[in-house]
């Protein structure tokens, strides 16, 4: 009894100390405006050039740029020195962003396929074609969008589909990119998105990269870490990777692991923490519930006891995991040492390596778990954080809910309450929203590539701001089959001809980046806004306008779903004299700021799960603000750097230190997961003896549609290649620069071999970048996906390599 009381007093005292410490940490480092960089805050002065802010068009880092405009054209781009994310620095893609607008083959007019040829048509005809096609069969229509949709575009598309057509077949390409991070966050903390932010990179002592070529994929953030070394700070980089990259070159420890073994490595770290009695009992007891996978595994699993947890991870001894992973026992012990050290601040980062994974949810759960277990959580520089590859995978897809099961604000279509809230905000008659989730991406394209007579077939897809003809896995099965099916109809809104427009029946020319108003949300919960600065070329028009125009045409055709419960158009906008603004008429579209209207309507959703978005007017003034952005007593708005952490997150109950207020078990605790190692579905064998990994390179972004039109970037990296180990090349008799054929169970592709190039694969592994539309590596990749996130694994399948003689 005395013992219990003493323990209680001790734990209370420690909790008080922890919360004080937490407060102190955050108070000591207030967000007191952006630091002034060397060289000052001046912008270059060039006569006639007007500068304006915008987030970069490319990745999820969310750098801000200043765009120089002269005579209606972008003439320069410079890093925005007031931006906290990039502090004035950009990467080579960022510096050349302005040039993506000016590729000679910009799409300038709508085109309809007639007798096999795409021929120019008017916008009116184009909008009619789409509306009539949807009206004829609304339930076989699907929308396929993107993490590059702006927030208002994604919101409008989602409302159009789920609120207007009562059809949930709307998916984003982000399903292929960060869906596993989403399920990872939801099944750990009960609510999506990183709790922490990039400030961690300025403070961590150890940076642990989980299958993430950080130097090439998020170069500005990478610099933010490695440049600290020049200031005399010590930061240890651990590169847990399947190939040696530019990131490895700057890392202190390069740990080459076997594909999929990240699951075993994470469990091995947990096991070492338990064995050494180095886990944070205080933190875990107060803030975590142990969770097991269940049998069979489910997304939310089942509760387990500490003993069950201990016995589950006990299997993952360093010796056994050394066998599975290819890491040495010493390397595994080093990882154990790092997490056992309470005095070091550890930041774990990951992107596609952990997300494009057939056990993507599981590995996300496990990396959160080892941080929670070791107590390396919730302090600046000390915690796990996922990165995104697209500029608005977070802001648009995750927050406005453009996924087949989701509604804005983290609500779900299969949850009655979520539907009611949504119908209420959208002023829809009750029961309008379909409770059945739509098809996820792989399913959606399978259904599009099935004959129309087949059960549940999809007949029409409208693609915006993405290029599935290049980025889907197993392309012959999921995309190219469309060519054989005459009654399928593919609508593509894009800025350049792509592998997707090649099979399109209707092509719509879109406005790009600063040719329209826009908003993005980067991967640290930062909502960003920009204004249109130049006119789009030819007849290109905003994607958002395209959606509103089709919706209005459907209204004219008598589609009941386009009216709200008061009989008004679901996208009705009134001017200051309460007169309807015909936003479906392009000449009137910019009479009001449609972005602001849609965003302010959508903002109501963000308060439901404490994701308070800042008012549009606040975003105009800032270089993005990290939600929740909460109004203060004096009328100012305060952003939040760390959620669930007292002293930073205003929603945390005072005195609790940490509070997971959206906990699945409703007890303010996070789930501390055990998930087992599961071998990958396809592994090298005698017939297909190599591992095939795919990914990006520094110069190109995604499918290269934009960056391949920038000569500087194209010349530096003009073609896809196969990165192959010197030993393997020698055994195959392949010299540098010679052509080889790659064959998997799904397809084959001829590529040039690159030995000892920019990066290097270990023997038995090859790597191919996916940016080159003339060398579609996704003809070879596997569509097997994570059972919960439905995200396919582009990182591992079995391939055969033969020399071309």
């Amino acid at each position, binding site marked *: 009894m005395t013992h219990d009381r003493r323990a209680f007093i001790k734990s209370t005292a420690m909790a008080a100390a922890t919360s004080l410490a937490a407060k102190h940490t955050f108070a000591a480092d207030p967000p007191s405006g952006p630091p002034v960089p060397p060289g000052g805050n001046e912008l270059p002065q060039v006569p006639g050039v007007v500068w304006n802010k915008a987030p970069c068009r490319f990745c999820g880092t969310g750098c801000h740029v200043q765009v120089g405009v002269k005579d209606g054209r972008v003439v*320069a781009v410079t890093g925005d020195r007031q931006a906290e994310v990039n502090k*004035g620095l950009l990467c080579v893609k960022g510096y050349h962003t302005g040039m993506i607008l000016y590729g000679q083959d910009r799409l300038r007019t709508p085109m309809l396929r007639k007798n096999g040829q795409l021929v120019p048509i008017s916008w009116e005809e184009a909008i009619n074609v789409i509306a009539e096609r949807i009206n004829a069969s609304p339930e076989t229509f699907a929308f396929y969008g993107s993490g590059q949709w702006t927030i208002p575009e994604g919101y409008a598309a989602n409302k159009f589909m789920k609120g207007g057509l009562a059809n949930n077949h709307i998916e984003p390409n982000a399903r292929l990119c960060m869906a596993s991070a989403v399920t990872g966050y939801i099944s750990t903390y009960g609510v999506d998105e990183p709790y922490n932010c990039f400030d961690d990179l300025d403070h961590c002592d150890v940076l642990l990269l989980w299958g993430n070529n950080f130097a090439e994929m998020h170069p500005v953030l990478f610099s933010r870490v490695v440049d600290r070394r020049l200031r005399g700070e010590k930061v240890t980089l651990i590169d847990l990777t399947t190939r040696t990259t530019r990131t490895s070159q700057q890392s202190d420890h390069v740990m080459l692991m076997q594909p999929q073994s990240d699951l075993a490595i994470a469990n091995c770290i947990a096991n070492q923490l338990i064995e050494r009695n180095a886990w944070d009992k205080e933190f875990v007891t107060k803030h975590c519930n142990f969770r097991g996978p269940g049998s069979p595994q489910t997304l939310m699993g089942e509760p387990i006891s500490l003993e069950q947890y201990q016995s589950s991870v006990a299997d993952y001894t360093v010796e056994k995991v050394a066998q599975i992973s290819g890491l040495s026992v010493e390397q595994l012990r080093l990882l154990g040492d790092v997490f056992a050290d309470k005095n070091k601040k550890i930041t774990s980062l990951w992107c596609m390596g952990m997300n494009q994974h057939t056990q993507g949810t599981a590995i996300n759960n496990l990396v959160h778990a080892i941080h929670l277990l070791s107590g390396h959580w919730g302090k600046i520089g000390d915690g796990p954080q996922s990165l995104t590859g697209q500029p608005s995978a977070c802001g648009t897809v995750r927050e406005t809910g453009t996924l087949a099961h989701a509604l804005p604000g983290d609500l779900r279509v299969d949850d009655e309450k979520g539907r009611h809230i949504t119908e209420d905000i959208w002023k829809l008659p009750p029961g309008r929203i379909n409770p059945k989730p739509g098809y996820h991406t792989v399913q959606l394209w399978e259904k599009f590539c099935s004959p129309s007579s087949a059960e549940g077939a999809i007949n029409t897809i409208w693609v915006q701001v993405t290029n599935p003809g290049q980025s889907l896995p197993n392309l012959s099965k999921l995309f190219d089959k469309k060519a054989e099916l005459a009654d399928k109809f593919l609508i593509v809104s894009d800025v350049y001809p792509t592998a997707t427009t090649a099979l399109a029946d209707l092509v719509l020319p879109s406005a790009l980046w600063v040719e329209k108003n826009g908003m993005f949300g980067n991967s640290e919960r930062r909502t960003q806004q920009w204004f249109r600065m130049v006119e789009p070329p030819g007849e290109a028009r905003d994607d958002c306008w395209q959606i509103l125009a089709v919706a209005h045409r459907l209204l004219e055709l008598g589609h009941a779903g386009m009216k709200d419960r008061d009989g008004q158009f679901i996208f009705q906008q009134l001017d200051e004299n309460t007169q309807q603004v015909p936003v479906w008429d392009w000449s009137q579209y910019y009479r009001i700021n449609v972005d602001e209207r849609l965003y302010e309507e959508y903002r109501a959703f963000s308060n439901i799960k404490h994701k308070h978005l800042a008012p549009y007017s606040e975003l105009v003034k800032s270089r993005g603000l990290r939600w929740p952005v909460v109004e203060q007593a004096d009328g100012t708005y305060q952003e939040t750097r760390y959620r669930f952490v007292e002293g930073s997150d205003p929603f945390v109950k005072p005195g609790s230190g940490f509070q997971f207020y959206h906990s699945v078990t409703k007890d303010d605790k996070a789930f501390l997961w055990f998930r087992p190692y599961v071998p990958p579905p396809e592994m090298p064998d005698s017939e297909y003896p190599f591992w095939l990994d795919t990914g990006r390179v520094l110069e190109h972004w995604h499918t290269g549609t934009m960056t391949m039109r920038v000569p500087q970037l194209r010349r530096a990296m003009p073609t896809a290649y196969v990165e192959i180990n010197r030993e393997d090349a020698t055994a195959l008799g392949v010299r540098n620069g010679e052509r080889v054929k790659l064959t998997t169970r799904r397809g084959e592709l001829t590529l040039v071999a690159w030995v000892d190039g920019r990066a290097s694969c270990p023997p038995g592994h090859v790597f191919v970048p996916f940016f080159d539309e003339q060398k579609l590596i996704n003809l070879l990749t596997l569509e097997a996906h994570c059972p919960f996130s439905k995200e396919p694994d582009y990182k591992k399948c079995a391939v055969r390599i033969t020399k071309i003689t």
Partner: protein
Amino acid sequence: MRRTDYENNLRIDEMKSTNRSSPSSNDSSDAPANVTTKPSRWITFVCACIMGLAFVGFLLGIRPQSTPPSVSKAPEMADSTAATVKDYRSLGKTGASRIPVSLISELKFLKPDLFSKVDRTDEMKADALADRAKVRAYDGAPPMVPHPIDQQSAASCLACHAQGIVIGQRVATRISHPHYTSCTQCHIETSTSGPNEPALVVENEFAGIDRSGPGVRALVGSPPVIPHTTWMRTDCLSCHGLVARAGIRTTHPWLSNCQQCHAPSAELDQKYASIPH
């Protein structure tokens, strides 16, 4: 005489470069130092070298012919105006004055004297600025790298660009922002040193801004104000110092506190507050 020396040196260079993979090659070039003093040791040494080379040759001979060469094919020219060289040694050959050295460490000492007269004409200046513009998409874009890079580390960039080197008429300027270390994040090659098959080639109609100079002088004889942004340029001497393109070198390199006389112009001081967003 000078020319012969140069050619002799070149031959040694070639020998060094062909034998670079063999550890014995460095010893062989040191050998002449021993020649006059100790003939017997010299004979032993030469024999050892010959045997060593023969042994290495034998090993090379028995290796399978299919070993991939470590140097990939010659890079393509970025465009007709941006000169590209195959390797560091050939940098010297592209210039008018041939410099009889090949080692970067020796080149580092080849700097003009601090007080030597600097000739500068408007023509030279225009040339220097044109040369500068060749490797930039617009004024303000990070310059491209007009030579192959080995991709290995910042240290390999800094071998030349930490101090700056003049090789013939080409200049490796010294880094003007030494607080950044991930060089290839911003600076990429003008043409690839990797695979280069026919690519999707689409013309780009972007027309970037040009340089903003020359700097305004308040009165005849006043020092000109800085005609460009100083952002990311913490060191004026990286472009204007002793190791710099001829036309934009300072005529008074012994004065090192540049901003004492050359002010950022009032126009340049455009703060964020004065622009709309």
